[in-house]
């Protein structure tokens, strides 16, 4: 058992826990998009970023991966953290302006959409990778993976073709936060 401070509150945690787990264990909310407690943490959406101070040095880290440590000080809602979160959400909203999940997150975090004035795309998939990990870790099938690089990255089956390995368990569709991945007539429909 070790103790750390989150938003001024002293908290007990076990070695090996992440800051996100420690915060949630005492009811402190940190927003996440690519995290799910049933799956390995991935650290891609960066929304759960928090400010940590360790040995006198302060830095931003993602709480879903950063391990707790004795004496660690965590700020989950500092100005620096809020700035980063609003920037990330703004970028995601420009990618998927129609996403209800993103819009409600923006409302919760008090972020005004369109502040950066980006051109609006019409995507649905935010590439959080929950479906990829669910397929790999829950269904143990690895039908889904990422293809392409950078802005061309997509969730895909091999060669974008229907996969015989898919057992239609629908874990991917269930876990998708933006409903970008669906099943139609029992068939897996990849995000556009």
């Amino acid at each position: 058992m070790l103790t750390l401070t989150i938003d001024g509150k002293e908290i007990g945690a076990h070695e090996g826990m992440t800051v996100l787990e420690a915060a949630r264990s005492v009811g402190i909310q940190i927003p996440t998009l690519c995290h799910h407690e049933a799956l390995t943490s991935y650290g891609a959406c960066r929304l759960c970023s928090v400010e940590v101070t360790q040995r006198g040095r302060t830095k931003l880290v993602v709480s879903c991966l950063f391990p707790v440590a004795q004496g660690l000080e965590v700020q989950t809602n500092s100005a620096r953290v809020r700035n980063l979160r609003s920037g990330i959400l703004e970028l995601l909203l420009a990618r998927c302006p129609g996403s209800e999940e993103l819009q409600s997150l923006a409302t919760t975090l008090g972020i005004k959409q369109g502040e950066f004035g980006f051109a609006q795309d019409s995507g649905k998939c935010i590439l959080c990778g929950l479906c990829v990990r669910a397929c790999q870790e829950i269904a143990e099938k690895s039908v889904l993976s990422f293809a392409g690089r950078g802005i061309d990255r997509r969730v895909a089956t091999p060669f974008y073709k229907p996969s015989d390995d898919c057992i239609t368990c629908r874990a991917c569709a269930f876990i998708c936060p933006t409903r970008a991945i669906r099943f139609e007539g029992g068939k897996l429909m990849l995000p556009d």
Partner: protein
Amino acid sequence: MITSIRSTVRLGSPLQLEALRESIVQKNDPSKCVIVICAGTGCLAAGAADVIRAFKEELKSKNLEDRVDVKETGCPGFCERGPLVVLRPRNIFYQQVTPQDIPEIIAESVIQDKIIDRLLFCDPRDNRTIIHEEEVPFYEKQTRIILGNNEEVDPTSIEDYIAIGGYSSLAKVLFEMTPQEVIDEIKRSKLRGRGGGGFPTGVKWDTCRNAHGSTKYIICNADEGDPGAFMDRAILEGNPHSVLEGMIIGAYAVGSNEGYFYVRNEYPLAVENARIAVERAEELGLLGDDILGSDFSFHVKINRGGGAFVCGESTSLMASLEGKVGEPRAKYIHTVERGLWDCPSTLNNVETWANVPIILKNGADWYCDIGTEESKGTKIFSLVGKINNTGLVEVPMGTRLEDIIFNIGGGIPNGKMFKAVQTGGPSGGCIPSSMLHLPVDFDELGKVGSMMGSGGMIVMDEDTCMVDVAKYFVNFLEGESCGKCVPCREGLKRMGQILAAITEGRGRETDIITLERLSVVLKEGALCALGQTAANPVMSTLQYFRDEYEVHIKEKRCPAGVCRALIRYEIITDKCVGCGLCVKACPSEAIVSMGKKEPVVMDESKCIKCGACFDVCRMDAVDKE
């Protein structure tokens, strides 16, 4: 040195290594003529392969093969003047040599001792011709503790390397020092990682040595991918044994028995020379089981990179080595504790490894005499862009930018003005002329918003548009982003869109603030160093060349005349003599002749702004604004 000696006897002790060295040196006749030719990628591209062939044929036809040796070496750095040839022992330096020059060189400078003036280097500043290699200003002002050896060895000959004292540091380390003593010596030398981060190498090794786990890995990062940077290629191509020796010493220090070269696949010569080096070192018992008769064993494999820029980042490189997609992961648990296959791993860059044997040979005190307080030793920079002497430059840390660019680099071509220098690769910052006095080391470059990076140095002249430069690097990084994290993937896309709009005359006054905010999101939020530093070109150009952004946005004008959408061409009728050159050159038929001696007429709606008319006009009658 005679490269034809090929030893295959396994060396069982340091004494046997020393005996081999002495026998190689003794067989070498110091008065014999050796034609040293750079066979690095730069000179090969300039035609060195034909020059080498021509020398060999000429020597054969003149029956001189026994009297004259030809040595193909790695890159000495003066790529601008390749193919480079040095005639030893007199050290006559011939540059831009072509196969047609060979019979004359043999007849005049090899058989007789005449100098061919035409092939000498002529200093453009005072028109002085220089005969000897060591007197060429480009070399004279450098401190070439690493690169200097490139000219001494044929990279495919382990005997050449042994002759100059190669592997003697390894012998000393294995038989006279404990691993901890090696680490302490590297710590005392204050060697810092040359790949970009500048992390203290000794501290890295120490942490890896103390990390839990019986299997540990040594990795050489040779995935050099910065546009315009090629120092690691030159070292690995030109002196692969120095890198290998550094790795074996590192392995002994951290307690590793297995290592990898991760070499960019686009460097075929580096891959080949590293392969030969590993093979030969194994044959001689300098690599493999029971090295030099000690009980220390170390094995090395060569892995070719998959072509992703991000694989130069340590965690991506390790994922790629494991056979996975090369994507980074969080480094909250460092790779020295859990790296390749979750085992403690020491990853260093090519240049860092090449420094190791030199430090152990000469001692940490000697090394500490070179450089600044916190950055010791030398650094190799690849000096490219608008510079007279393109090439590789090795200088002590702390050398001022102006000394590198003007004294060694020979300044800006065609009498143009210096505008900026970008250091540190695509994620580096652009440093303006007011900061040319800056001493170059890890800390000073960081303070002004740039970085050392791996040592790229791109010089820009007055004709460069800084918004266009920022756009170029953002586009490069956008294409190389792996796409895993939101700030890098989405942020660079939006930055690219905004910069494109500004350069095309669609910029908005709020764009500068948006770029600044996005820069913070990238710097603070991105997962790996690629994304965290990707905004540097934008931030530094906004800091030092903000007025250029403003002119693009507010006046829809590109002061450097680069951004095509913002340029206008006009015929100055007073100056035009109606010669019709521009009419012929114009690909879009936008210029019409109105008869002899009558000024031509331009239809602006047809003009594609290619600038062909501007380039061909002899009367300066085309105005560009």
